[in-house]
């Protein structure tokens, strides 16, 4: 924030002008605490703190906020921190991995994961985005089958990559039913696309549903993880954007962490473990 105490209207206006010399932050990193069973009439979400920063800036913000929440929960005794979730950007990857390794070594009481909805959305860059050729055995995950099957264009030529609803519609029973009618296309590719969409949806269901039993959730997540990390890829570009290594890392982090978090939250709402 820039203090404007004592400034005249004109000075404030000149600062607000797009051509002013004020250096602006590009992003705001927000830390939100979610509380399971907050009680009737209380929101489960609470915005705790935020940090203005440049794009994907590496800082100690994650570590500091996590440490404060974790130590407070320990001290209060009645609250406990179950998980820390971030999106799949590279600047948070090291923090997430560090926290998860700490948990597995028994030093932390909370897991850390990459958010499931982000992971599923990110999978589309390779899956249907066409940044690389995604192969499963002898078959190709062929996104061209989607327009052939008459699937709505906004689902496979994505404009809003941040929307959860677009992913849900893409990996819906209606889309799979449409693709499955393509009997004149190569059967292996049609099956690969249908099963991939099925597992994408299964993964989202495992985390977002309010009704499933925790053992079922873990089974669904693990099965989805095995399928979605089994692809090979070929790319003539060879850039980071066109391979699935980052996706695999995020999927693995998420699955390992959620297995523990779900087992711990047997009586609680697992669906709050997401953004």
């Amino acid at each position, binding site marked *: *924030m*820039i*203090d*404007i*105490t004592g400034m005249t209207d004109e000075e404030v206006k000149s*600062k*607000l002008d*797009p051509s002013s010399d*004020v250096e*602006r*932050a590009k*992003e*705001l*990193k*927000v*830390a*939100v*605490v*979610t*509380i*399971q*069973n*907050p*009680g*009737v009439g*209380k929101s489960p979400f*609470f*915005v*705790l*703190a*935020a*940090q*203005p920063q440049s794009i*994907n800036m590496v800082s100690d*913000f*994650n570590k500091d*906020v996590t440490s*404060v*929440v974790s130590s*407070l*929960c320990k001290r*209060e005794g*009645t*609250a*406990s*921190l*179950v*998980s*820390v*979730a*971030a*999106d799949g*950007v590279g600047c*948070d990857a090291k923090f997430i991995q560090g926290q998860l390794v700490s948990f597995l070594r028994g030093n932390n009481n909370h897991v850390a994961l990459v958010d499931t909805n982000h992971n599923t959305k990110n999978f589309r860059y390779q899956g249907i985005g066409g940044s690389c050729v995604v192969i499963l055995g002898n078959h190709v995950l062929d996104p061209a089958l989607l327009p052939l099957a008459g699937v709505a264009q906004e689902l496979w030529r994505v404009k809003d990559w941040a929307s959860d609803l677009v992913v849900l519609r893409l990996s819906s029973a209606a889309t799979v039913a449409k693709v499955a009618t393509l009997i004149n296309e190569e059967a292996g590719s049609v099956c690969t696309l249908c099963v991939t969409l099925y597992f994408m949806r299964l993964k989202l269901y495992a985390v977002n549903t309010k009704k499933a039993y925790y053992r079922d959730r873990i089974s669904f997540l693990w099965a989805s993880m095995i399928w979605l990390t089994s692809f090979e890829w070929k790319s003539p570009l060879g850039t980071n954007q066109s391979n699935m290594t980052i996706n695999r890392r995020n999927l693995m982090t998420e699955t390992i962490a959620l297995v523990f978090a779900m087992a*711990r939250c047997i009586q*609680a709402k697992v669906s*709050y*473990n*997401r*953004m």
Partner: protein
Amino acid sequence: MRDSLLCALMQVYVTKLKGKHKNPELPAKAMNFFIACESTSRKAFDFVSANMLGPCLRTIQRRNATTRQPSIICISTSDLESRLVRHFKTLPDYDKSTLTELLLDLMALKYLQSSHYQRALVLSLVESTRII
């Protein structure tokens, strides 16, 4: 049904219908509705409030000012703790075991605006955000 938003809005409407009670105490549900409406869109609030005989804009602004908290980007470690403890204590079931998660996400900042409350220039996520 009597506790519903619909009944609360009807109560506001009927109370002010004859013009005798110009500034009645509004039911909490109706007030929350109008505050949410104002924070979403000022134009929508004007339209809804005028047609449903709701509170004026200044009433909403006064109400918001009483519950305003310090900026979330200017807090120290001790402030973080006290903020969290204060929130925990408002929870009715806090005495029982409470499970919490921490979510960290990035949002793009686009607009530079002046905040009269903070006496500062701040960056906001959306153009329509009004910081008063």
